[in-house]
């Protein structure tokens, strides 16, 4: 049994949060540059240039890329041969989140959903995070972190289609969601699509799909082709950067299905669309 100190996890999470909210990820940087080359609209080009300049300033000044430093989202895979000493893994994630957000001068954006009162004093600075745990073999802890902004979350939707609607139904639903969201979700965007599983799990998969680096193909060749088809259709909408009109609305479409077998119930076709703004702040750490 491998042992990992609670404090090491706290520190790793704290540092990851501060770094990823101030430094644009490499894949996103590359995608924005490519979008700038391909974009035909002058207005959208100007927006993309501002975004690349913003990333430079943020990294240089270690200032958050965006003021919405989001909810802290974690997908965690815990090996069966690893044990945390000095506290639980969940406590370490909470404490790492609190320290990362508070010591990194990030925004405390969690509130009571009824009174809207900020939770920083009652629960903790930008606490609680949202955590999905999974149990795997091995002696490692793998942690994926995203700072997920509210604007793009507000444009996300889930539904359950009839099986007969098939791929065409999925395409139409994604198109409707992206079209309705328009400028509100800070395009150019990454579109995470969860298909199958159950109603709730489709949404979880649509969020997890956003962790895949842009440019990494879907391991399922059929879905890889479908992703490209959807992206092409979405870019015909003409929304453009920040919705000001243009050809580069969607940087990537990522589909995730329930494994094994791309499973869902014989009666259902759940589909969820989670939109990620251009300020995609995600990171991966292995402990």
């Amino acid at each position, binding site marked *: 049994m491998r042992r990992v100190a609670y404090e090491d996890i706290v520190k790793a999470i704290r540092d990851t949060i501060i770094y990823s909210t101030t430094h644009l990820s490499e894949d996103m940087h590359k995608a924005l540059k490519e979008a700038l080359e391909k974009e035909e609209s002058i207005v959208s080009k100007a927006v993309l240039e501002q975004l690349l300049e*913003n990333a430079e300033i943020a990294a240089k000044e270690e200032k958050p890329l*965006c003021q*919405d430093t989001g909810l802290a989202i974690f997908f965690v895979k815990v090996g069966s041969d690893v044990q945390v000493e000095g506290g639980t893994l969940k406590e370490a994630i909470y404490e790492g989140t609190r320290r990362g957000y508070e010591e990194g001068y990030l*925004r405390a954006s969690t509130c009571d959903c009824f009174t809207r009162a900020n939770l920083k004093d009652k629960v903790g600075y930008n606490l609680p995070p949202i955590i999905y745990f999974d149990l795997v073999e091995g002696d490692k802890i793998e942690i994926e972190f995203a700072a997920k902004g509210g604007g793009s979350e507000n444009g996300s939707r889930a539904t359950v289609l009839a099986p007969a609607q098939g791929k065409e139904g999925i395409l139409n639903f994604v198109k409707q969601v992206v079209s309705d969201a*328009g400028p509100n979700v800070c395009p150019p965007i990454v579109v995470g699509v969860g298909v199958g599983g159950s109603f709730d799990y489709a949404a979880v998969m649509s969020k997890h799909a956003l962790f895949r680096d842009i440019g990494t193909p879907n391991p399922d060749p059929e879905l890889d082709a479908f992703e490209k088809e959807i992206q092409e259709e979405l870019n015909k909408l*003409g929304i453009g950067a920040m919705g000001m009109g243009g050809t580069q609305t969607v940087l990537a479409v990522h589909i995730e299905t329930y494994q094994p077998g791309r499973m869902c119930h014989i009666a259902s076709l759940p589909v969820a669309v989670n939109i990620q*703004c251009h300020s995609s702040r995600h990171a991966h750490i292995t402990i």
Partner: protein
Amino acid sequence: MAEYKLQTPLSDEDVSKLKAGDIVYLTGTLYTARDAAHKRLVELILNGEPLPFDLEGAVIYYVGPTPPKPGEVIGSAGPTTSYRMDSYAPILIEHGLKGMIGKGKRNQDVKEACKKYKAVYFGAVGGAGALLAKRIKDAKVIAYPELGPEAVREIVVEDFPVVVVNDTYGNDLYEEGRKLWAKQ
């Protein structure tokens, strides 16, 4: 598409010359407010009580910045999504508000109020919080400090870059831009 440099507060004449798609660099004082502050401002107007700042010609920036580091004027400070202020904006416009800065679509009531009382809605680049903060030279909380990032701040800006989304003539940059580039 024209380019203007404007000084706040804005006059009817200032906003009347602006058309959707124009680029504007704002200099002067802006006030920050999000949903929670808007709710309170509207309540004050309805109760006939004074506001924490003069609405006449004012420009409100929809932003909830990150906390400043020691020595900084303000943290990251990009626009938030504007539709959440749609139910409050028309009454503020009726009482003298001339400009709003945010990102994303406005509803018909806001667009109508912009036409009727001469006001404009500007879009700033969402997610460019570090870049936009560089154009903010001073910031102080003037009301509702208990709201934290949502408190009302008086901020001083220099050449703050925005684009006219909704003008005083009923034009909408988002609709026009999309029509121009849509391929179906």
